[in-house]
């Protein structure tokens, strides 16, 4: 795809140099928001199901709230408007890798435009349980073009910290499958025809997603967490990292541990 500025446009020709400069300026004004544009902080957890990331994010939220910070937590695929359509497509098992990807992108765009970005502008701590990296990992595993998927999501602001919960596949599988829950079609990656057995399919699918996470963690500067460590120890590491984002005078006052059962 040619970039918008690579060729003089018809309209520019009509309006002369001023029009061209105007168009460039307008295009520049549309640039993606950057971290420095907003006073809020964006903290993301990523990892496969069963890595314990949601538990850790909840504990982090409690700690921030206990210290009187304004916090907003948002989960992947949770926008009301988009959910009903996505679930309709899922029920029919009629989604292709691209439509699956774009519907999740729609969901993300809705949460980003209505919640994440305005709240970051308002100075909130936004805690995201999965972010664009989930799309990078899952959609590429499904066969979407890795470069395309990054372009589609390039309106998203870069997180201040992304914690990646690295866990051996068997550990994660044991955590999820111990009760032999009923796996959903897309959750198990059954659309990829990996295996006739849904549990085996799920396992292969998760393995491929882990490969994607591992391939991107350096480039995306993830903070890699050892998800086999005790919950409390992991949480202390997360808090120490997040403390560095706090305003100076608050750093000392902020308690590191939540006493009791807040």
């Amino acid at each position: 795809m040619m970039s918008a500025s690579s060729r003089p446009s018809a309209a520019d020709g009509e309006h002369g140099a001023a029009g061209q400069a105007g168009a460039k300026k307008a295009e520049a004004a549309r640039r993606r928001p950057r971290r420095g544009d907003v006073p809020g902080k964006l903290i993301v957890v990523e990892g496969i199901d069963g890595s314990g990331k949601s538990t850790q994010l909840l504990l982090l939220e409690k700690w921030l709230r206990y210290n009187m910070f304004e916090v907003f937590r948002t989960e992947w695929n949770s926008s009301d408007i988009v959910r009903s359509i996505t679930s309709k497509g899922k029920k029919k098992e009629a989604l292709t890798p691209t439509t699956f990807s774009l519907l999740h992108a729609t969901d993300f765009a809705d949460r980003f435009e209505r919640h994440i970005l305005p709240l970051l502008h308002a100075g909130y701590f936004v805690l995201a349980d999965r972010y664009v990296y989930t799309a990078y990992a899952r959609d590429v595993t499904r066969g979407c073009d890795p470069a395309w998927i990054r372009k589609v999501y390039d309106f998203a602001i870069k997180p201040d910290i992304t914690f990646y919960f690295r866990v051996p596949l068997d550990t994660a599988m044991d955590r999820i499958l111990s009760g032999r829950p009923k796996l959903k079609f897309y959750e198990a990656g059954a659309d990829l025809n990996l295996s006739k057995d849904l549990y085996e399919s799920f396992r292969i699918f998760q393995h491929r997603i882990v490969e994607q996470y591992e391939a991107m963690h350096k480039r995306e500067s993830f903070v890699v967490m050892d998800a086999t460590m005790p919950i409390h120890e992991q949480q202390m590491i997360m808090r120490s990292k997040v403390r560095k984002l706090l305003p100076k005078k608050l750093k000392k006052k902020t308690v590191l541990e939540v006493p009791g059962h807040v």
Partner: protein
Amino acid sequence: MGDFASVRDASGAVVAEAHAAYGRVMHDGAGEDYEDDDAPGDSGAGDITEEYSDSHAYYDSDIYRQLAVAEDAGTAGGSRGAGAGGGADAGGGSSSNVGGMKSRKPKWYGTKKFGGLHYLRDIEIAGRLIVIEGPDASGRSTQIELLTTQLEAEGYAVLNTGLTRSEIIGQGILEAKRNISLGVRTLAMFYAADFADQLEHKIIPALQAGYVVLADRYIYTLMARNTVRGIRRSWSGNLYSFALVPDMTFYLDVDPYVLVHRVFAKRQSLDYYESGADMGISKNMYDSFIKYQQRLAREFGILEQKYDLNIINGNRPTDAINAGLKKQILRYLSKA
């Protein structure tokens, strides 16, 4: 919905290839060169009977059912379309004509680095994709109706598609648009999902089966709408890099002051989104419509250069426009 399921089965098979090594089908540049040699028409002001409802008439038509059956029957190739087209309303000559179009690899938008649908890179298509673009009330649907009849009379099997007509997502967009709080990017993404669904479930299977697909609007309208609402052109261009490059694209260029009268002649009110009312251009809906349509037209001027659109003077009577389109399209198909 047996029909739909069978199409999905076809795509399910395609999905299975998703893990093959990454490879790309590139947009290999220039298409055919079409000249606009529309003869001036002699009919009076055409009856503007454009269909506004997002009717699923075509979607559920016999032709679509035929298509589903054709897809079900097996993989597509150059000669598959002959079998599919033979049973359609197209008439006696259809088989030979449809089968006559050369099968080839599809062209995708995008660059060497990315673009196209990875997992469909090995497909062959026998049909042809023809797009009619134009603003609200520009006469697109009327032209498509006329062309459909004319092409079928010549023996081509025709499938019609349009925006927000996808089974899974189209209705969702219409519902979502009633929710005014929806963001610009969210709506843009919704439209992309709807488009992708139709591309993979309708357009590509039909092309594989040797149909002439007449698309009532395509990615260009969606990109223009995004840009006038403040989204970067490069983002929209990248987003739609998975789309097929049409064989021919016509843009019905109609003066906004003519457009507004055509709209009023039909329904005495201006549509909220087609007037850009969500953009807060003006409290006066008439002003807002004119300015919004002017901005879109300007954007199409930019798209024309980038995407090789054929600009058609849409201010002329329906018959005159149709005569020119028919001539160009039939000439192209006879050589295809």
